[in-house]
């Protein structure tokens, strides 16, 4: 599961760090750090954190959409760095 926190919205309420401490952590009083790639066993906790965030700053998806991406990298990768 991939996730991103909109840190413009985040106001450091720390509900996420309380509900999913393996994913979210406070760095100091207000600043949030998080792991943007979440293991499956954290899915429940992350879902709770998403729901509990007072400013709705957490966006997560299910890790089930690689299908449309898969075609691209293979053949074009050689043109990259």
């Amino acid at each position, binding site marked *: *599961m*991939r*996730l*991103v926190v*909109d*840190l*413009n919205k*985040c*106001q*450091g309420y720390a509900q996420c760090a309380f509900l999913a401490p393996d994913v979210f*952590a406070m*760095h*100091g*009083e*207000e*600043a*949030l*750090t*998080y*792991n*943007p*790639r979440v293991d499956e066993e954290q899915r429940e906790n992350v879902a709770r954190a998403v729901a509990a965030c007072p400013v709705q700053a957490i*966006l*997560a*998806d299910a890790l089930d*959409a690689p299908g*449309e*991406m898969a*075609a*691209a*990298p293979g053949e*074009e*990768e*050689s*043109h*990259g*760095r």
Partner: protein
Amino acid sequence: MAADAFLTWLRREGRIVIVGASLAGLRAAETLRDEGFEGSLTMIGDEPYEPYDRPPLSKSVLLGKASPAHTELPRRRPVDAKWRLGVAATGLDMAAKRVLLADGDEVEYDRLLIATGVRARPWPRQAEAELDGVFVLRTRDDAAGLQRRLMASPRRVFVIGAGFTGSEIASACRARDLPVTVAERADAPLVGALGGVVGAVAAELHRENGVDLRTGVMVTGLEGDSVGRVRAAHLSDGSTVETDVVVVSLGATRNTEWLAGSGLGAGPRGIACDAGCRAFDFRGIVTDDVFVAGDVARSPHPLFGYQFLSLEHWGNAVTQAEVAAHNMISSSTDRRPHMWVPAFWSSQFGVNIKSVGVPSMGEEILITQGSLAERRFTGAYGYQGRVIGAVTFDNSRWLQFYQGLIETAAPFPPAFLTVDRRPEGRQPVPADFPDPSLPTHGPTVTLSGYSPADRRLVFKPAHP
């Protein structure tokens, strides 16, 4: 009407190409599909990776809390696009409506969105920039390389530039207990964005956390050993710092070179566009089929005197992409302006730094809440008698209130007296930004060598 018929056709079977497969590109693609675009969508990105998020690269990743390979952006919805990743766009033929790619392919469009962003400004001397151990931090590959090197317990990390990225890197190094030296040309960190009053607080933060902060100095050269690894940095005050990792954090350069000769109004400061994200051509005429969003865009903002602002802000990339995507498939009367109030954040040394508006336009600053000494405060910036920006250190819940003041051009200094105690007093003080009319580094050039054959120009940075 013909225009309506065209739009109906465009939405149903038109071809939209997005150059730039990062935050702005992805959010634009999602918005297009959200708003019912059913035609073909092509995403072009020069990196081989699907769209990923960059802010964690200088924070969670360097702190060892996330992998640089796993910051891909979540999807708000499937975008059903053809992805051309790992291939750069190299040119634009506006007359033929074609994007040229590095692999020789050409992609035709009916509407084009340019979201090519910025890249890290490299160390200017190429031979020194190529030394082993010299990094910039912008991409996922940069972060992976730097993280590997930090894990190998270097003797000392040397950071050139104490802007937001440089400060975050120094903060991560100290959190990992690595010795770190930061060299900054100005008198304090963050001065360009927040001014000298707040910069002084940032300098304290660095020093209290054990950073060897050198201000008012320039780096005159990087020195390598016999096998090409960096071993020392030389400073303009004559000192030398032994180091085995150097991170160059000198800001960013806009990715517009590929548009040279295209006829678009694109240059080192970005691509000029109107408030509806439509690109200008170099004659100042607005185009109707080329749109711009994200860090590479430069658009006029009515709240800030119609200045053309180019913002390297995460939230700007998101909202500008949404506006651009909406306007690309809407008739002229349905189009929306991009009027996002600039906002950014940084997290360093455990302090949450946030800002709204354009502090760097501020002439004066008033600490309206909290205190500088506690490093928990709100500062309001004033410009010509109105509030133009605000910054908070660990005080972010107040930011929305100040955004309201900025949006309504509230008077400065603010009239309220009862919000909080003000140990710093009720008189605004100069915000202490560098004078933009003065050259920042007053270089001098000297001639050296005796015979005409080996006379050379030598650059001598001025002493502070």
